[in-house]
């Protein structure tokens, strides 16, 4: 059924269709409609779930960890400061190998207080061991929640679905809402082998000495690496049932392209306008959207960029004292492939500064005019 949903509603509908059993969440702009809508849905009896109205995001994640370890499908949603407050427990959920799914509305980080979008909140969680997706429209928001559970429960890792604040979270778009039966067919009930169980009592997470600790980290990383395959499989299944196609990456007019905009999130959509315009003018340019950031699809990116003339990586984020984060991580991937493609790194749109087609044209223009980047960050749209 086609419905007009804002991104926050798409999250809530996705969680409902996934038949989550325990929700623990705390309100924060620009995520609030998620807690509000799910409160309603649960109060109306349309979803059989316990909604724990915790006193902080830290407790939200703790409750999800408790619930997931006990064998229930757990869900939360947050943004920015809330996500950061969970930080210790993000590591916990991941090392605990708990298939929690969380929606994070990408909002910039305070101080100063800000509620507008950029990716610093979630990207600064890149080392916590969570699978991370960055989505580009509200349909993908909904679908990725469902896909997320399927994936999480297969590889025993938590999944974070990131969407741009306001641009998706508060923007109404038409979304195809799948039937519950189809979702049920795709996503079986959660029934983990390792869980808190009165019949088989175990202690989870006890003191782990240096004799035994490292293997868990190895397994954690291996599960991440396996996820790449599982994502492909799961997306394949999803496409069969629902007819919509997703993957680690998304390509737009890439086949014969010489130049590539490497993007993530909603900027990827606006970039299509720019690419279409440039194509009209004969510029062979395409878009490589990085949909999956953890596990990092380094091989796949290198393959997609192989043979291209130049690539322009667009980061709506920054690692202070380094560079844009997608940019840095992609360089790492290309280095080992012995690739020598000129790769430009642009930082744009921090704190919700709007990214228009004009800005994106400017980026392409810059890249076209320069042989190689001379700086680690090319700043776009900063007052000087």
């Amino acid at each position, binding site marked *: 059924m086609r419905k007009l949903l804002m991104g926050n509603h798409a999250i809530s509908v996705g969680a409902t269709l996934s038949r989550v059993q325990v929700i623990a969440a705390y309100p924060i702009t620009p995520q609030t409609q998620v807690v509000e809508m799910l409160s309603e849905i649960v109060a109306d009896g349309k979803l059989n779930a316990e909604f724990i109205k915790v006193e902080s995001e830290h407790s939200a994640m703790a409750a999800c960890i408790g619930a997931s370890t006990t064998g229930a499908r757990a869900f939360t949603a947050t943004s920015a400061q809330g996500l950061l407050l969970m930080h210790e427990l993000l590591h916990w959920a991941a090392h*605990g190998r708990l298939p929690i799914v969380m929606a994070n509305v990408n909002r910039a980080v305070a101080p100063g207080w800000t509620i507008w979008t950029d990716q610093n909140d979630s990207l600064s969680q890149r080392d916590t061991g969570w699978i991370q997706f960055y989505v580009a429209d509200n349909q993908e928001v909904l679908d990725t929640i469902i896909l997320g559970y399927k994936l999480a429960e297969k590889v025993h890792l938590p999944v974070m679905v990131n969407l741009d604040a306001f641009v998706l979270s508060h923007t109404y778009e038409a979304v195809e809402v799948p039937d519950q039966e189809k979702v049920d067919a795709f996503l079986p009930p959660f029934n983990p082998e390792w869980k808190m169980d009165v019949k088989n009592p175990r202690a989870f997470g006890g003191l*782990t000495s240096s004799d035994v600790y490292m293997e*868990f980290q190895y397994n954690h990383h291996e599960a991440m690496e396996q996820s790449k395959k599982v994502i492909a499989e799961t997306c394949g299944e999803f496409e069969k049932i629902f007819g919509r196609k997703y993957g680690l990456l998304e390509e737009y007019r890439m086949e014969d392209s010489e130049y590539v905009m490497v993007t993530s999130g909603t900027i990827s959509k606006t970039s299509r306008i720019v690419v279409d315009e440039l194509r009209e003018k004969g510029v062979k340019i395409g878009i490589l959207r990085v949909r999956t950031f953890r596990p990092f699809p380094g091989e796949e990116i290198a393959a997609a960029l192989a043979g291209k003339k130049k690539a322009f990586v667009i980061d709506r984020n920054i690692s202070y004292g380094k560079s844009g984060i997608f940019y840095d991580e992609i360089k790492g991937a290309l280095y080992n492939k012995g690739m020598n493609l000129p790769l430009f790194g642009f930082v744009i749109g921090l704190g919700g500064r709007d990214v228009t087609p004009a800005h994106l044209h400017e980026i392409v223009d810059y890249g076209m005019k320069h042989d190689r980047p001379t700086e680690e960050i090319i700043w776009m749209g900063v007052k000087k």
Partner: protein
Amino acid sequence: MNFKPGKKVVLEKLADYPLMPASLADMTHNFTGSWRNMRPVIDYDKCINCGTCWKFCPEPAIYIEDNKVNVNYYFCKGCGICVSECPKKCITFEEEGK
């Protein structure tokens, strides 16, 4: 309850590991008797079977069997609580290894 010494769990290779650090056995392999440098010894002649020593042993290393209290020296850490709480003062503390 008279606990028997348990076995160590050895994780030699990756395949021996559980998915996450979940326990696979109890701690009864741990010979906490080696922590002891004083040993409680019960004088059954004086003992009145009040059960106090059993009640207060933190390990627990005292168990009830054959209608008497018994010390499990594999686990007794030699804290001396039983010695100190016995109302009949019928547990003595002897130097270990003497």
